């Protein structure tokens, strides 16, 4: 049973969350999702960030910018296909009169797009990440238009994101409005009017639904055992060397003919191995020669061995402290 007293606080939380991601509802180009600013170019997505490095250093913006100054727009692709698509980038002064609600249709209706354009970068294929540097010389309302052309179909996908330069925030107004809303809500709740309107259970259930808990994904146990030896001696920092992997199941049966992929890295540093090691030879008896191993830093490493056999896919993580 949910106490009626927590309901307004739960709703305050939801209100603040929804306020912080208001842009998601406002228009389709750039949205905030899970603290991440994302640009959606049709079904293709990229993490979207804007910086004003000269003015505010590493401070990240999702859309509105505080100053008319040098601005770096960054799209880090979440879909690899963007790496192969010619992408163009246009910034126009907002001549649509629609402000934050401008859509692609409004852009198409602009009679003289060129004269409204303050920056245009023609289509270019940029693998992995797309960056643009433009220096705003005046404050005002602008619209960004990103277009990507599908290399096979020739179809053009577009994202539109209105934004303001010289945006100093909404101040305390959203909080004052939120507070007034809550006081009124609490009054309705205490006076019993809300209960009469909807019934308490449905309010509580809706609150729970909105503020629902996430369930952590289950993890799966491995059932293969991987051991390794280093015939070239212990792994020294920054020396290319090979490993012999030995794979058997829990009953001691040596696994032959497996397809093995090796990845790895330093989880604490968020980077992978400096090389891309590969199995170069199956030696028999569950042994496989792994070449191209190199660790370039001391610290905690993990080597992840993905194994495909007749019976399924397995993943074994080998921890190493160097």
């Amino acid at each position, binding site marked *: 049973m949910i106490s009626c007293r927590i309901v307004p606080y739960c709703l305050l939380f939801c209100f603040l969350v929804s306020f912080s991601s208001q842009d998601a509802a406002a228009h389709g180009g750039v949205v905030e999702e899970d603290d991440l600013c994302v640009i959606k170019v049709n079904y293709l997505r990229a993490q979207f960030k804007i910086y004003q490095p000269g003015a505010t250093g590493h401070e990240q913006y999702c859309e509105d910018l505080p100053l008319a100054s040098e601005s770096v727009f960054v799209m880090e692709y979440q879909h690899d296909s963007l790496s192969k698509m010619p992408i163009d980038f246009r910034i126009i002064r907002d001549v649509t009169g629609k402000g934050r609600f401008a859509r692609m249709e409004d852009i198409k209706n602009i009679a003289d797009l060129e004269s409204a354009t303050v920056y245009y970068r023609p289509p270019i294929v940029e693998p992995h990440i797309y960056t643009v540097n433009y220096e705003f010389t005046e404050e005002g309302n602008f619209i960004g238009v990103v277009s990507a052309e599908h290399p096979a179909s020739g179809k053009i996908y577009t994202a539109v994101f209105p934004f303001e330069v010289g945006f100093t925030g909404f101040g305390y107004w959203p909080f004052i409005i939120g507070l007034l809303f809550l006081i009124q809500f609490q009054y309705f709740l205490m006076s019993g009017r809300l209960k009469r309107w909807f019934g308490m259970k449905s309010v509580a259930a809706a609150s729970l639904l909105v503020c629902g808990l996430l369930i952590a994904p289950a993890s799966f146990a491995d059932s293969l055992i991987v051991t390794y030896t280093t015939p070239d001696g212990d792994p020294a920092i920054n020396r290319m060397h090979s490993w012999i992997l030995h794979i058997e199941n829990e009953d001691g049966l040596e696994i032959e003919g497996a397809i093995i992929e090796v990845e790895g890295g330093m989880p604490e540093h968020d980077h992978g191995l400096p090389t891309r090691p590969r199995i170069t030879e199956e030696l028999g008896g569950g042994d496989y020669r792994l070449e191209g191993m*190199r660790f370039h830093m001391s610290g905690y490493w993990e080597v992840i061995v993905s194994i495909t056999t007749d019976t399924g896919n397995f993943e074994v993580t080998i921890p190493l402290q160097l």
Partner: protein
Amino acid sequence: MTVACGRWSSSIPKWTETEIDILKSLWLKSLPDLPPDPSNAVADNPIAAEFGRLLFFDARLSANGGISCATCHQVERRFTDGLQEAQAIGTTARHTPSIVGTAYSPWQFWDGRRDSQWAQALAPLEDPNEHGTDRAAVLGLIAEDAGYRSTYESVFGALPELSNADPVLLNTAFANVGKSIAAFERTLMPTSSRFDDYVEAVVDADADRQAGLLGDVEIRGLRLFIGEANCTQCHNGPLFTNHEFHNTGVISFPGDVPDKARIAGVAEVLTSEFNCRSAYSDDPERQCDELKFARTGTDLIGAQKTPSLRNIENTAPFMHKGQLATITDVLAHYNEAPDAMIGHNEAEPLGLSDRELGQLEAFLATLAAPVSD
């Protein structure tokens, strides 16, 4: 009123066995023999090295007759130039890196877009913003300069006829120019610094000599360097570099977009005209393990090569575009470890005090030493 009595000492705890092992790993005497470069048959040929030295300082190897390798790689600045962006025929895309000790590195340039010193040496010659010349003009100069021609031919055999030569022969001769410059660059090594002398005194357990070499502040800085400040995660080994690529969240240069760095560099080296797998490599086996197992992937976004810290005070400004003017700025940057503009900053905030940062800076100054002749 009471007066506190007691003894306070400024002496620093002794090094543990583990710490001594780390100190030895950074010691110049631990530097292994120069690895062979099978892709360059004249890598250790002294005549080629002398030829390469002359070419390195020769400004005729440029479009305007005013730019040599030494314009940017200045001897007195540990083969750097003191500028944010190198100035040659035009302005280059990055800060001039040092070339001292780069014979030990599998990758050249900040983004590792070349895999040998000789392939690296060729790229600036034909870059319009650097020497702005081309292979035909370079070979034309060697053909016309009697001294160069005879030296070239004594090392590599007859220079091909330039007017209507097979492009492969021309490219081979051009590669030979790079191989000569590389033979010279292989001789550029750091020499023993005050830090190295101190490690020797530690290894010898000679307390008097140790006391005369590093002061308390420098020793505290060294202790931070190998410990809490995590510097040796990347700046390790006797050259104080792991020769690898890391994103450390350095801010973009005014007017530039953030540098993609290694993710673009690895794509380039895998297909570059003069790489280890090319016909111009002298290695008959062309094993090319570094290329074969080269890492790719998005965690290389914004990752630049770890520079050596030896003689660091001579290589200012710092980072790939000289964004940070002083060592103090660099240490403040790592202490903060801001989010990277692109990719992920691998470094974590250190939370060191200003006093501790000062100690680190004092230690780094002990790495000063002349470059080998």
